[in-house]
């Protein structure tokens, strides 16, 4: 394959870019069976393998078969399924490893510790005294700072979730505290993966995935 210049990459359509990423992606090759992996679970949308450099024995990588870089790019029905699968695999890991807990871990973006261009969800079996780390520090937040943060985030919450709440549970009519007027979330909120491509709104997400094309 000829060397691609930065200019070439810049001129690529999103489809071409994705095809290129896929071609170079180790995890896509695992999905296709071109690279051997210790597969522990597979269905039509997801594959789970053992991490060859585990944080602890039994460390599982759960990935969508489709090449995406960060979770916001995954279609929402699959996000939901990812949640359910991570619970089930966490249960499996608890039993298989006789573990006393698990850490479920996702990194979206380089600065969050993402190392692969293919989105991965980590399930790490935990035992007392293991040296895996991944401990979240706990600091205090003043009431006024918490209030400020809440005020800051709420407009974005309303935009991303639509004016009404209840994103996914079809069988649960729900009356929210405010404006119970309409029940359809905005189309934007329905498909976060699609809205970022055409519009320039999601610049941050573009930046997050930018390193993957380098």
């Amino acid at each position, binding site marked *: 394959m000829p060397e691609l210049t930065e200019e070439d990459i810049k001129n690529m359509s999103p489809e071409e870019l994705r095809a290129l990423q896929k071609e170079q992606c180790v995890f896509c090759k695992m999905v296709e069976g071109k690279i051997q992996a210790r597969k522990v679970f597979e269905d039509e949308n997801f594959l789970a393998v053992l991490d060859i450099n585990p944080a602890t024995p039994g460390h599982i990588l759960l990935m969508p078969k489709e090449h995406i870089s960060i979770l916001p790019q995954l279609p929402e029905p699959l996000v939901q399924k990812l949640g359910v699968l991570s619970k089930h*695999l966490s249960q499996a890991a608890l039993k*298989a490893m006789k573990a006393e*807990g698990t850490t479920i871990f*996702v990194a979206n973006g380089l600065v969050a*510790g993402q190392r692969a261009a293919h989105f991965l969800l980590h399930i790490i079996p*935990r035992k007392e005294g293991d040296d895996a780390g*991944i401990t979240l520090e706990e600091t205090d937040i003043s009431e006024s700072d*918490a209030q400020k943060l809440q005020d800051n985030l709420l407009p974005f919450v309303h935009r991303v979730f639509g004016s009404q709440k209840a994103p996914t549970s079809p069988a649960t009519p729900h009356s929210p505290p405010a404006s119970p007027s309409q029940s359809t979330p905005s189309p934007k909120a329905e498909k976060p993966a699609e809205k970022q491509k055409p519009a320039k*709104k999601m610049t941050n997400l573009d930046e997050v995935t930018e390193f993957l094309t380098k």
Partner: protein
Amino acid sequence: MTCEICQQIEKKIGVLIETKEVVALIAPKPAVTGHVLVVPREHHAILEQVPDAVVGQMMTVANRLSIVLFEGLGCQGTNMIVPNGIPAGQSAPHTAMHIIPRNENDEVNVLWKPKQLNEEEMSAIELKMKEEASKMGKKEEPAPKKEAPKQEVLQLSDEENYLLKSLKRIP
């Protein structure tokens, strides 16, 4: 025993969004500013106790909150972490998905030191894990093709009871 998260839900302190089953909150003990939580409304100690449909919804809400943090705080990345059980660093007896905004040179350190196991060890683990994973799918998800969330009765295994017991020790 009163649960702080349950109280926060009840008093509507720092609530960002709520559905019938899931609530998103400003984290009461944040790792960094902007740290938020997605919790089941109903009190469950660990993720394994939460019904599938609710776990699915938690992930969906958590993912959208990730987008909220990207847009609202302009962060460069996010972590989503569920510490499940005391050895995983779970500090409250109410299971939570943590969403943490990340920026270059921030103070958060959640990375681990990778280990290397030999082939034999890996093969043994693979075998056990495959076995458990295959059982799991059948028991808990009889109709994997259906998109609709399943209603199910939760049954706790011995391992989970162990987890619960240890969580009850959390003050």
